[in-house]
């Protein structure tokens, strides 16, 4: 194809997205669109998969059967969400194996929030309430993104996600209405998860390199700063109901803006964690790669069995 032809196709392509048409896997698309989507969808999938690890830590130690079945179901949902997203990503012509390889080698990123440790039961509450809350704010606009398979996967994810946040908030509520020690535990979890949750919504707009292009492709409908403000505005009243204090002395209602003003985010910490120096980066990757390697013989055995069954069937047919 000549350069002019490609330019022509690109213009038609952008026009389709502007008209709110969906792009499907076999449609022509600019190489940059394909690569950007592979990067974002796979990062999203990896986050779901690694996201199971901090919570998996507490399944065997959940304080009641009710909490245990809920946590198990939540972690199972996260596996499911990872699988929806991997399949959506594979429609762009990349194999599952390569995607796993990118995660395991550290080439691909996942949400940095999962590199923080879960040291008390209250962390299960704070994760559901704050981390899933921030994830929902990120994900709801993606239900109408331009790439069909991603949008469809997000619709299913968002439907399932609201139970995650509610079960987390219920854990916090119970602790806050419990003994002083339990309430203290809830406050401690909020203190540790608040700032990383704000960072989860991404670098500030002036530091975010992909925003403009992503807005055009509807991979983003609101900027990181807008999403962060929305998250803060809806979460502060929820903390008030719990009787907990947001660990930000600069947090203050701004009557004029109709929003909360908030303090400086420690972006050095964010970039340290992204670059692999968070408290649990190594531990998470070790757990993930270990599970993959220890499962290899099971995957091979299943494949060998399937082939044997197939051969037997073919022999009988003769």
């Amino acid at each position: 194809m000549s350069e002019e032809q490609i330019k022509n196709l690109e213009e038609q392509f952008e026009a389709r997205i502007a008209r709110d048409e969906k792009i499907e896997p076999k449609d022509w698309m600019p190489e940059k669109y394909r690569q950007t989507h592979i990067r974002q969808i796979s990062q999203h999938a990896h986050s779901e998969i690694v996201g199971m690890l901090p919570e998996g830590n507490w399944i065997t130690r959940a304080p009641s059967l009710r909490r245990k079945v809920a946590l198990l179901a939540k972690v199972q949902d996260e596996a499911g969400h990872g699988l929806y997203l991997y399949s959506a990503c594979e429609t762009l012509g990349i194999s599952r194996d390569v995607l796993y390889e990118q995660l395991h080698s550290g080439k691909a990123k996942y949400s940095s929030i999962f590199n923080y440790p879960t040291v008390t039961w209250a962390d299960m509450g704070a994760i559901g309430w704050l981390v899933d809350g921030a994830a929902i704010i990120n994900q709801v606009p993606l239900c109408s993104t331009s790439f069909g398979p991603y949008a469809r996967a997000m619709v299913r994810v968002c439907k399932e996600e609201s139970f995650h946040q509610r079960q987390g908030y219920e854990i916090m509520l119970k602790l806050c209405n419990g003994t002083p020690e339990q309430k203290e535990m809830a406050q401690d979890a909020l203190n540790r998860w608040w700032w990383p949750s704000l960072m989860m919504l991404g670098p500030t707009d002036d530091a975010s390199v992909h925003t403009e292009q992503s807005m055009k492709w509807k991979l983003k409908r609101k900027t990181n700063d807008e999403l962060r403000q929305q998250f803060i505005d809806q979460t502060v009243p929820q903390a008030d109901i719990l009787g907990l204090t947001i660990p930000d002395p600069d947090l203050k209602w701004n009557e004029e803006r109709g929003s909360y003003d908030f303090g400086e985010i420690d972006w050095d910490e964010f970039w340290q964690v992204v670059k692999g120096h968070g408290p649990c980066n190594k531990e998470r990757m070790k757990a993930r790669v270990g599970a993959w390697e220890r499962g290899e013989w099971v995957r091979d055995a299943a494949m060998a069995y399937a082939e044997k069954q197939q051969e037997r069937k073919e022999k009988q047919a003769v």
Partner: protein
Amino acid sequence: MGTKNWPLWEIFVRSKNGLEHRHFGSLHAADAEMALENARDVYTRRNEGVSIWVVESKNITASNPEHNGEMFEPAQDKVYRHPTFYDLPDDVKHM
């Protein structure tokens, strides 16, 4: 890395009797039976279905969107296939 990767399967789910099976997504499995079991866990954790079909993705032949012109445009100028093409007086009822 394993010797062979599990193939890809397309999953179709009937939400309830009376509705058709609809494409829900895809997954990897060693064989059809495992694809069914995995589809149950991945796509119907909240009673989304009463029946599942699995088809190995390589067995699906798809039309090429680049040929959508010759494929689908011929239907566009055949307005006589639609009831509104036919002029009838307004007082004709039940038609």
